[in-house]
């Protein structure tokens, strides 16, 4: 055994795998969508309105699936509620210092918000014609709701990274940038998803789509910085990525998922297929980021 093995190598993996990877991706996507919806609600154009609705069409189902994935991943799914209510004392089970604990509450809360947003979108499009409901939603203080669900969204997107960090596993517990990275990735994947939606549906003004592209560009630049910071913060532990994981990170996440989309967005002449390609790549890159971050640590057995 080599000298001075980092202490995180003497721990055991939780065996969180694909279910959790998908959850992290979808949760980030939903959170990011709510975040973008919020900004558009605050300072957007009238033409952005459809995008806000799309954001909730994405967020709510994503959160529903996320919740199901989370429950399915439990050893004892029928006891999922033990995370909310302490089964013996029937008191609320809440630990502000435990990401998985407050995360459980967060997910619940956020899902409710996305649900409301989801229903409101329907109403706006006039699918649901129940007057009382329409009234109720119109009275809903739109901006406040937007801000709250936006914040919750960012929180959901970010806490998934913090959850990994608040352990003793290699990589996860060896950096302070996982939260930031997952949050930004969530935002950029959400932007990408909305861009695709924008292209798909009329009448979304190109202007809105272009603004989303610029948002994505900015967020991806931040994401790139966060990723670099993370790699440096790992120090020797980063050696774990001198492997296929590293290759996937560089090619899949950085190159395909960030640099190529940046390049495509930077083009002056607008050409919708390029924009679509970029968006698709961002989504794939965002997913691969979760894959690498979760599974490359999972793969390290006790003792390194």
């Amino acid at each position: 055994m080599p000298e001075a093995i980092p202490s995180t190598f003497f721990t055991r993996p939780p065996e969180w795998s694909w279910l959790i990877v998908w959850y992290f991706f979808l949760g980030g996507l939903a959170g990011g969508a709510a975040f973008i919806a919020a900004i558009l609600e605050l300072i957007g154009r009238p033409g952005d309105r459809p995008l806000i609705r799309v954001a909730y069409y994405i967020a709510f189902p994503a959160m529903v699936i996320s919740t199901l994935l989370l429950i399915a991943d439990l050893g004892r799914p029928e006891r999922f509620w033990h995370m909310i209510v302490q089964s013996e004392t029937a008191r609320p089970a809440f630990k502000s210092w435990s990401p998985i604990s407050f995360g459980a509450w967060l997910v619940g809360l956020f899902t409710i918000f996305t649900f409301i947003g989801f229903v409101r979108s329907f109403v706006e499009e006039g699918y649901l014609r129940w007057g009382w409901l329409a009234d109720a939603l119109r009275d809903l203080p739109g901006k406040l709701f937007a801000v709250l669900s936006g914040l919750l969204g960012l929180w959901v997107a970010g806490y998934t990274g913090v959850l990994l960090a608040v352990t003793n596993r290699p990589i996860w517990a060896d950096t302070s940038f996982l939260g930031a990275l997952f949050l930004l990735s969530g935002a950029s994947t959400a932007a990408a998803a909305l861009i695709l939606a924008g292209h798909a549906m009329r009448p979304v003004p190109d202007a809105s789509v272009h603004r989303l592209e610029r948002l994505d560009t900015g967020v991806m630049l931040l994401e790139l910085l966060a990723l670099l910071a993370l790699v440096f913060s790992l120090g020797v532990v980063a050696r774990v990525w001198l492997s296929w994981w590293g290759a996937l990170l560089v090619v899949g996440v950085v190159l395909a998922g960030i640099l190529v989309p940046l390049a495509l967005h930077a083009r002056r002449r607008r050409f919708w297929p390029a924009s679509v390609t970029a968006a698709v790549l961002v989504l794939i890159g965002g997913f691969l980021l979760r894959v690498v971050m979760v599974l490359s640590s999972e793969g390290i057995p006790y003792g390194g």
Partner: protein
Amino acid sequence: MAEPMGFFTDSTVCIGCKACEVACKEWNQLPATNGGQNTLSGDSYDNTRQLDGIHWRHVRFIEQFNEDRSQGRWLMNSDVCKHCVQAGCLEVCPTGAIIRTEFDTVVIQSDVCNGCRDCIPACPFGVIGMNPVSNTAQKCTLCYDRLKVGLEPACAKACPTDSINFGTIADLRQMAQDRVRKLRAEGESRAYLYGADPGMLGGLNAFFLLVDRPEVYGLPANPQLPSRNLGPNAVGATAAAVLAGIVGYFTLGRDRPEDRTREDRTGEEVRRA
């Protein structure tokens, strides 16, 4: 609360008989790896390999011989949950399944645990694992059920050489320090205590006498609480959120000329006219 109880495991008198492993399995009715049809690990005499949900005691074998055998040692040590005074597992457990008992030990209540598995990576020592029978996370209970009726833990009871000593932390620390002093006097200068000092997670209620670096025994040199990462990551995430917000403000908030689509322009011309 009764007096804090725990283990002092003296690796220098361990004969690697594994009676502790078996006594634990028998008392706690834990299943065997693959119904017993395990494979040879090739790593000395260790075939159970690690602590996990069905191995709550694990005896590690370390062979240290130089080329010509002029120097040689075969170290053995029986590892177990450390019942940390500051316990990472207990810190994160979202269901309250993990509790601290009146003996200052850390116990997972199998009927409460829902198998979220967050405690597994949270433990700095890789102690916890899933038990395939209960589908919950499990580990050493320090024989809570036996302690409650005044019995000593099964593993300590079975240990033929008193390598595993059970008692009050105060007594154990005294005993351990005397033992270290004696060993040093006899020339075993490498003897030291791992985890007896409150500096390590407030003190481990199961601590060890070792004669080589912790890593050699599969123990972390610097175990820490998972919560140490909460602050920094939260700050990082918040900063990222703020920055994302700013980017959002500047990108989604304003138009750029090139965004103007045909419809927009014709609209202006009409106005000029």
